């Protein structure tokens, strides 16, 4: 004779609280991405918001048969000025961080976000531009994106924000995502930008990319210590 189901009345109670306990309900706590995220997160082309290259992935860190991420779908050139942004991630001793990952989120050339929340229908969406990108750092701690220079977007009140790119920093040793921004040294309205103006003047430069001789906009992200990047409370 088989017993269909055990007697549920005699089950032991759960030994301790868990994810579904109503008494614990609240935001899921953040945890580090650790050092082994490269076959799980940064896809080929994740850092190329303009063309169809493999930028962003670290396929040197796992065998090719384990590449299960996106194969960057072909898309046409988005509108606007093509730019390259890059920089290093540095730790508290100035050493490059080779197991970090940078994400960007930005408006298109017209200053419109490809998001339902941005309902400014007077500004065009670009069918070839989402504005989200992801780049693992390389062995020298360098991240790099090819993208479009974003148009200005509105800020609190009637203050326009200068052209900027929102940045997330993730990595081994980072228990929480660090949020920062990239502005451009020649950006119109940087001096009036409502967010930059909340940053102590002597630390403002940590958010402002400068153009190198090769045309790349460069911004090092310093996690700790002298020259520490300004991170925002989010």
């Amino acid at each position, binding site marked *: 004779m088989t017993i269909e189901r055990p007697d549920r009345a005699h089950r032991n109670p759960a*030994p*301790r*609280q*868990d*994810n*579904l*306990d109503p008494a614990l*309900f*609240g*935001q*899921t*706590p*953040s*945890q*580090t*991405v*650790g*050092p*082994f*995220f*490269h*076959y*799980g*997160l940064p*896809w080929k082309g994740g850092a190329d918001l303009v063309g169809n290259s493999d930028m962003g992935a670290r396929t040197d*860190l*796992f065998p090719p048969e*384990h590449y*299960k*991420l996106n194969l960057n779908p072909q898309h046409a050139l988005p509108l606007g000025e093509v730019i390259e942004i890059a920089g290093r991630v540095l730790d*508290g*001793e100035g050493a490059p961080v080779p197991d970090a990952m940078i994400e960007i*989120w*930005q*408006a298109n050339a017209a200053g419109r*976000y490809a*998001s339902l*929340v*941005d309902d*400014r229908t007077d500004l065009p969406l670009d069918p070839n531009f*989402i*504005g989200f990108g992801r780049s693992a750092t390389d062995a020298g701690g360098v991240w790099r994106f090819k993208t479009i220079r974003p148009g200005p*977007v509105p800020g*609190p*009140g009637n203050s326009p924000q200068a052209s900027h790119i929102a940045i*997330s920093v993730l990595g*081994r*040793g980072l*228990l*929480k995502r660090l*949020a920062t921004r990239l502005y451009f040294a020649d950006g119109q309205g940087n001096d009036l930008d409502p*967010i930059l103006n*909340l940053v102590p003047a002597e630390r403002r430069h940590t958010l402002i990319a400068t153009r190198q001789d090769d045309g790349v906009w460069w911004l090092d992200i310093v*996690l*700790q210590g002298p020259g*520490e990047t*300004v*991170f*925002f*409370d989010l």
Partner: protein
Amino acid sequence: MSLIVPFRDPDAGTPPSRVEDYRSTLLRSPHHRPLAVPQTLSEVTGPADCWDRLMGPALSDLTTQHAGPPIGQRIIVSGRVIDDSGRPVPNTVMEIWQTNAAGRYVHIRDQWDAPLDPNFTGAGRVITDAEGRYRFITVRPGAYPWGNHQNAWRPAHIHLSLLGPAFATRLVTQLYFPDDPLIEIDPIANAVPMPYRQRLVCRFDIATTEPHWALGYLFDIVLKGQDQTPFEDDDHDH
């Protein structure tokens, strides 16, 4: 004019940036407190409805990505993505990565003495449905040693990455399994103060378990939510 409805602050379960026992945080945690600034359109927006284009189609079965079935205990992980008011977060992406059943990653920097499984990568991706539900199939990951301290072992875990509806809701976390003795002594899990650490422990569920096929576990992910009432961003300072 777009409505700016800011997302809530992190709650009491948020870990600090620096945790003495997790050594990698010591040189990588900022000394300055994060700067409080108002959320703008840049923070309350995020990519949506574009996951196939952006990341590729869903990969919800991690056990069918190679020629044969992977070794290990087959499991179903299921739950909802909701906000901290309990509202579902529909059509959002969750990326997944983990070790194989022996505790080994396919990553070349993971060289500890445990076997690789040619039939298991451990990478996946799901999109939540209209009620915020998700479900994926995998094998139960193993524990693995790491160099943090003498005889250090990570409890078995699944890495989960969510963008949520906005730049402000970005979350990367780890799911742990009930009754794992390693959770108690893991510096990463314990970066989250008790009792909130237990939010990261999934629940075995017999109703999710499929007879003669796979054990079921439940795990809800709770993202930052927004206050009920939207307001015009030019009327308020916040």
